[in-house]
Every structure is written in C-alpha cells, then in structure tokens.
C-alpha cells in the first residue's frame, strides 16, 4: 500500500518536473537557423568547391598527380614558338597551352592536396557549397577557356619598374595564401 502511494506520487510528480522543463523551453530562443536566408559563418579555410583560375595555370600537372581520386583531367601542349609570351600573375612564364582542365566535383574528396603543389596558386578551394544539381554530369566543371586574356607583360619587370626604390631585393610579389579563402 505504501509502495502504491509512493509510485503514484512519483509518477505524478515526475510529470510535473518534466512539464517544468518544457515550460522553460517554451520561452527559450529557438536554435533554428532559417537556412536559405541565414547561413552559418563558415570556418576559415573551409574546403568546398574547387576553383581554378585559368589565366594563371601553367599546365604543369602537379595538381593532377597530387589528386588521390583522379578528379582533375588536364591536357596541355607546347605553345607554338611564335606565340606571344605570356605570364601567370606571380611572374611564372606560361610555356604550355592548356587545352583541357576539367574537375569532376562528384569525384572530389575535398582533401585540398591539389592546391599545395600549384606553383602559381591558381587552383584553390572556395567556400561555395551550394552546388547540388539534378544531373551528375553538371558536377563536371570545365575551366579551360578559349577566350582567356593572359598577361602579356612580365609582371616581375613591371613591379620592378613601378617600385624600384622600395623593394629592389624582392623579385616576386607575395603569393596568394595557399589553400583557402575565408
């Protein structure tokens, strides 16, 4: 009998305790983030979709070799000898004509390994993550451009001419930080 009363009281009282908790939560702010309109701030160096700046690519293929899943396909050939000399933004002369530079983002494992060996830092990961498509083939990004406008003047010479007094010792302007855009 005593046990019965104890159990009934316990059942009743614990319900009240639970109700107190839910009552408290009735007035706490919702934690919902209204996603398409509000987004979490991404951590710095978030690794999302790959991007390649075609104008800076020298076609060395180091990213292709670094990729563990072979999602980058590159086809490069020697530029004709009579073609005007062109340079990447950090002063590397571009000797190869990059005909194909495809990244299949459906294969990419977001490891960021391709960005480290790039001598011109032209391939990097962007914080862009909303690229879902209804068709898998749309994840194949073709970066090779027919109408790319290259730098036709040696950037190193240009920099030296612009600021000869300030920095005569440093030949190259500081490179873009590898890997990420915050």
């Amino acid at each position, binding site marked *: 009998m005593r046990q019965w009363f104890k159990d009934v009281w316990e059942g009743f009282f614990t319900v009240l305790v639970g109700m107190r908790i*839910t*009552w408290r939560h*009735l007035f706490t702010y*919702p934690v919902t983030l209204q996603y398409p309109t509000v987004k979490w701030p991404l951590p710095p160096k978030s690794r999302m979709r790959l991007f390649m700046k075609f104008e800076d690519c020298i076609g060395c293929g180091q990213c292709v070799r670094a990729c563990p899943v072979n999602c980058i396909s590159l086809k490069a050939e020697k530029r004709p000898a009579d073609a005007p000399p062109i340079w990447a933004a950090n002063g590397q002369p571009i000797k190869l004509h990059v005909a194909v530079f495809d990244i299949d983002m459906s294969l990419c494992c977001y490891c960021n390994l391709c960005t480290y060996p790039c001598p011109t830092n032209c391939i990097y990961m962007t914080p862009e993550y909303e690229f879902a498509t209804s068709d898998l083939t749309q994840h194949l990004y073709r970066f090779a451009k027919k109408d790319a406008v290259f730098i036709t003047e040696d950037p190193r010479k240009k920099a030296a001419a612009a600021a000869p007094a300030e920095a005569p010792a440093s030949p190259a302007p500081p490179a873009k930080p590898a890997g990420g855009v915050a």
Partner: protein
Amino acid sequence: MDATYEYLVWLLPGAAQWPAWLVVTIITALPALACFTFMAMGPLIYVYAERKVSAFMQDRIGPNRVGPVGLLQTLADTIKLLFKEAIFPKKVDRKLFVLAPLLVNVGAFMPFLVIPWGGRLQPADLNVGVFYVVAIASLSTVGIIMAGWASNNKYSLFGAMRSAAQIVSYEIPTMMVLLVPVMIVGSLSLKDITEAQYGGLSNWFLFRYFPIMPVAFVVFFVAGLAETNRAPFDIPEAESELVAGFHTEYSGFFFACFFMAEYTEMFVLSATASVLFLGGYLAPHPALQYPHLPFVGPVPMGWFWLWFKAWSLVFVMMWLRWTLPRSRVDQLMHIAWKVLLPIALVLVVVVGGLVLWPATAGGFFWDRWVAWPLTGLLFAFLLYVMVRALQWNRRRARELAA
C-alpha cells in the same frame, strides 16, 4: 432554443406569425449552423497552436512561411488535404471505410450541443447533459474500430483494437469521477453544474473539499486524455509501432476528418473539464462576469471565460504531449485499472459521504482560503520559470556574442 426563438422574434417581429415548421427549422438550424461553423473552424487554430507550441518547446520556430508568422499554414494544409485524391485500397470495405471518419466526427462534434457558453448561450440544456457527453463521445470509438476493420490492414486493426481496449478501460474512471461533481450539484445538466459554482474562483469545484477535488480533476483529466487518444496515451496511432494506427490507409479528405475529430475531441474534453471543475462560463471573480465598460455598459463575458479555460486545458494537453513519451500498452492498462480506478472509487465514496454529512455539505471551511493563494502560487511559479528562461536567453545571447 427558447433564447433563439426570442432572438428571432426580436430580430424579425413578424416571425411570431410564421408557420410553426418554419420557425422550428430556423431556430434549430441557426444554432446548429453557428455551432458547426465555430467548431469546424476550431481545428484550424488547434493545429496551428499545436505546431507552434511543439516548436517552441523544442526550441524551434515552427510554421512561419505561409501568412504572417505562419498563421495560414493550417488553411494551406486543409486545402491541400481536401484537394488530394482519396485513395481506396483494393481490399477495403468501402462502405465502412467511408462511414468511419464521419462517425468519428459525429462523436467529436455532438457534445457541443450541451456545452454552455453563457447564461443562455447553450444549444440545448439537456437534463442528462453529462451522461449525453460521455455517451456521444464514446461514439467516436465505434468509428475508430470501424476504420481499423474496414482498412483490412493489420496495423490499422491493431490500432483500432488498442483504441477499443483503451476506451473501455478509461471510460470507467472517467464516469466515476464525473459522478463527483454531479453528486455535489445533484444534477446532470451542465448548466446546473456551472451555476452551482457561482461566486468566483474559490467556489469552483476544483477547490471544493480541498485536497480531494484537485485529485478528482487530475484523474478526470488523465482519463480524458486517454479517451481522446492524445499523447502520452496515443497508442492507437503510435507511429513508431503501427505506422499511423487506425488511419493508416486514409488519405485526403477522410484523413482530414480524423484529424479534425481528434482536435475537436480535445476541445470537447477541455470544455467539459472546465464546466465540471473550473466553473464553466463563470469568471474567476463575479465582477468579471459582466464587466462594465465605459460607453458600452455591461459586456457578457461568459463565452470568453469558457473559451479561455478550455484553451488553457488544451494547452496543457499539448504541453503534456511534448513532455512525456508514449506509454506502453501494459502501462496504460496499469494506470487505468490499478491507479485511476481505485482513486476514482475512493473519491466517489468519500465525496458522497461528505455531501451527505450536513457539516461538510457545502465544502470544508478552509476551502475558500486555499483557492486564491494556490492559484497565485501556481502562476507565480510558472512566471518564475519563465523569467529564469528569459534570463537564460540573455545569457546565451551574450555568450554567443562573445
């Protein structure tokens, strides 16, 4: 009905000369129509409220896209449900399948006939009001069993059978506890029961025979929760075990019918509990019954008070639903037969004795001293928890900013 007749004659003085059949049709059809419109609009609000309350209790936002703060969400859902195809599986018993949701609705809507909304705002003051409510409310169980059987689906039938077992069990404590206010008043009419509680908060039956009637109220409320198949007693439609229980096979309009019935039953139960224990349409203080407003004069507030009390209880039901996990079948039976029924029996005997004994026929002498302090304490506690929650909010906002 007399009130409606007088109103009709006051509105159209010529109506006194109209043929009797026309007058009867009008004065029966008008209240019915008014009631039905009122009731049918109800679920629109209940569903919205339920979704919002559940969202807030789970620290979510809830529907907020359709209309301002999501107010039109239920309307959109209703329209969607009405325009959806009503799918009839191949082997259902079509007649019963169609009849079941309608019957459930009958059981849900008919009790509104006797619920008093004010001195004369009552469709019909039956002298067997309480009995009528209980009898009619059980009709929806027949509908549920019908739905489960007609669906020709094992989960539906499981749900229906569980519902039957549940209702049969919980009818008994409900009826027993219903006897308690009925014994005090000596009448089954809901209006008489309400009027017997006149005189403000301290005269409500909730505070009569102080530690006894609150127990009766809790027993009635818990048993009522089980009878309306609400959580934590919603095992007939336990979605983790039985897909959706008895309405698994329903779609479109018929599903909407079940939904409407469930929420209407909630309201009916709350309104009945308000009438029996919380003074129905009576205000917490007699001065608030017909408050004198400047330039307007006395305003009848009975409808507001019943509405307010019933809604508070509906809120408590939602609150419980989002607090407690679903009980098991054996726990359910345990609560009905081993907890609620003994308590109800003791209540009937004890209150019966107290009513018969002249010294305590009108309640204990301390009854009128407990009501206000207790209510105050309850609301103070809720306010305290609320303020603490708001403080917690501010602290968290500061932490997030830092």
